């Protein structure tokens, strides 16, 4: 399970890096989003991978740390998702503004010399 998820995160992150290095701003945006998905998954699994362990104490039972998953990374990933979502949306707005103002979607704001 660890190997599968590690490879999956690596592939998504690698694809993100490749896209970030592309010259069109939409590709850069997609790359940033893929990278943030990979990072969110990564944060999620730093609490280790468990099966059948809830992060919360069931009502009415004494808490047993061995039966519970680590709740902190789940809280962290929630915050990271929200912040990443907001900043990516902001980048999208800037991107649209740049497209409208410069007439090109190249990240430099002008087409490269042919």
């Amino acid at each position, binding site marked *: 399970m660890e190997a599968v998820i590690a490879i999956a995160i690596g592939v998504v992150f690698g694809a993100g890096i490749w896209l970030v290095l592309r010259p069109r701003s939409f590709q850069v945006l997609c790359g940033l989003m893929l990278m943030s998905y990979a990072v969110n998954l990564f944060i999620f699994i730093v609490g280790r991978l468990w099966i059948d362990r809830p992060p919360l104490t069931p009502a009415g039972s004494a808490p047993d740390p061995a039966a519970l998953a680590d709740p902190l990374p789940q809280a962290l990933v929630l915050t990271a998702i929200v912040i*990443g979502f907001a*900043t990516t949306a*902001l980048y999208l707005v800037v991107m649209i503004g740049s497209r409208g103002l410069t007439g090109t979607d190249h990240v430099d704001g002008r087409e490269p010399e042919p």
Partner: protein
Amino acid sequence: MTPLDHLLLAPVLLPLLCGAVLVPLTEGWHRLKFALGYASVLGMLASALALAALTDGGYWQHGIGVYLAANWAAPFGIALVADRLAALMLLLTALLALAALHFARLRWGRIGVHFHSLFQFLLMGINGAFLTHDLFNLFVFFEVMLAASYGLVLHGYNAERLRASMQYIAINLAASLLFLIGAALIYAAAGTLNMSDLAARMAGLAPGARGLFEIGATVLALAFLIKSAMWPLGFWLPTTYAAASPPVAAMLVLMTKVGAYAILRLWLLLFPQAGFGHDALLWGGMATIVFGAAGMLSSDNAGRLAGYGAVVSSGTLLAVIGYGQATLVAGALYYLAGSTLAIAAFLLLIELIERIRTPHASVLAVTLEAWAVEDKPDEPVGRGVPAAMAFLALSFAACAMVIAGLPPLSGFVAKFSLFHALLNPPQGTIAAAGWTLMALIIGSGLVSVLSMMRFGVRTFWANSGAAPPKLHRSEVLPVLFLLGLSVFMTVEAGSVFAWLDRASEGIHRPQDYIGRVLGQPVVPSPVPQPAAAEAP
């Protein structure tokens, strides 16, 4: 917890509340918006002064004030910690914000709708980053600061600012992802994100976990170094500074110092003896000095000149931190404060200097008119100040002296104290890296003099058509204020250094932080607790 402990929250809460109040105020209401923002910054200044007095006055044990948010005991909740270093940075932020906001009163603050609220949120993020004692919370405050800065860099919307913002936002989004990876790896290795708890657990880490921890710390450092523009991570900085409107650029100067602050704080806590990564900081910092100096020589535009000046100051700071000698830190802090104030003053001054040149003659103005979206504020009405040219030339010379480190202003005192510490190492012999660093600092000073004087000669002497520009009081005062602070730092160098020495001694004793933060008692509940928690 005493009532005065709540003062730790003021630098975060004041701008947050003020910014929130300012959001619904749309166009118009300029005086009210400015008054509210100004009141909030004055409140921040008062609380920063109070925190400086409390941390230095023996009110808290070891001069460390701890605030447990929501009354959760230290490693579980988020702790805010104020020590002398944090108080110094808060004070610097408040002073700089006061000048930048005053400068924006009549022109920059009146265009766009949300300048004042974004400015407050930026201050909230910066102040929070200085106060927080939790890595993930540091990330949140960084993001608040960055999100506000994205909006502010775009302030006065034009094609150049948009282009600069695209790069600035993309690189900072990537840096935030690195920050998250670093924090996650550190959590995976040590199981906590509270800085003092991390420091306490460092000794007991298994070798495997230690390796993971060091990888995490390295990735985290990369995120900080992108912020503080270390070569080769800082190519975004000159473009962004040159594009941003002057009050925003002045605040950006401080933002590069937040990265250096975070590294100084974390590294002294987590790696007090090991010196992990210090070589990379030292040589990277020196490469940054070379890059910044070369950039200063090659830049024609005043904004870029100031941006490369900020790169040189950042590089000097990082190299000095990386040198890892405890006696250097007080000088480094003095250098940080002095160079930040001078570069900010220079960035504000540039706009006034640009007015000497007749705008209609330049090709750039025509191009910008062709875009027809230039959101540029009107010139302020009313009488200008007298002797505008003399003021501009003298202020420019003062900025140049501080940035280059010439006597008699604070830049010289800063470099003198750095050299004094470098030439008197505790172990007796000076390493080769020490000589290289000194040579680079002297060389970068020389290059700064050359490029600043070239700019000055072109603007003030060789410019035959120069007519005295109209300067408003609200634009002159902030520059004089920032330069006056430099003069104050020079005149009062003795007492300032005594304070900075105490600050430096404090951050070199991680045991004090561990004891204070983890030992901070929670406030007992006012209602008696039942013997066992009942399930709902």
